């Protein structure tokens, strides 16, 4: 299935990309996280959370075709 990935702040900077489409066979956020850490080893040392369709998502959440997933570094609002 195809996922829309978005990267923000220091994550976008670390992987030099703000968004991309990826095709994966995996089913959970944890699976995706593993795939991304193999693709971008620099993520291993960075702090981030996942958002699934604009809501924070835990590692066991199930991904569906067409979902929008974002990697969010620590918040700095205010």
């Amino acid at each position, binding site marked *: 299935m195809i996922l829309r990935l978005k990267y*923000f*702040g220091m994550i976008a*900077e670390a992987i030099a990309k703000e968004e991309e489409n990826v095709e994966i066979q995996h089913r959970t956020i944890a699976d995706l996280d593993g795939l991304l850490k193999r693709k971008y080893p620099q993520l291993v040392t960075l702090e981030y959370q996942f*958002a699934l369709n604009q809501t924070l998502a835990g590692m066991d959440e199930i991904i569906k075709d067409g979902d929008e997933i974002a990697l969010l570094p*620590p*918040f*700095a609002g*205010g």
Partner: protein
Amino acid sequence: MSEKKIKNFLVEGPITPEKIATSIAHHQVKTNIGAHDIFLGQVRADQIEGKEVIAIDYSAYAEMANKVFDEIREAAFDKYDLTCAHIYHSIGVVKVGELCLFVFTSSKHRAMAFDACRYITEEIKAKAPVFGKEVFENSSFQWKSNQ
């Protein structure tokens, strides 16, 4: 799928004192209001390892940030007896001394305005996907974190 239109809470660049004055003036027709509380976030010239911050460059996951601001605002209306509540957060470069956050709550009595303004401000710091680069004099930078 809810088709609710989400308001835009993000403003390009600093929030000006004039915008705050205009917003206050707009509330003078609401004669059931007895108390307003306003929180303003201002960019500080912090010293970090001998370098001085000259600006913060804010970015956001805009669609999610607006959804989060809207949810925080709605939660404040549920928790507190408010007449009005407004939130504005800057995106882009905000220089030292300039304002990056404007939270404005209004109520019949002061306790609710105070409680709600603080609640909204804390929730924004914790939950809004807004990111900031602290820019130094020599154009180097570091990523800011609320944690």
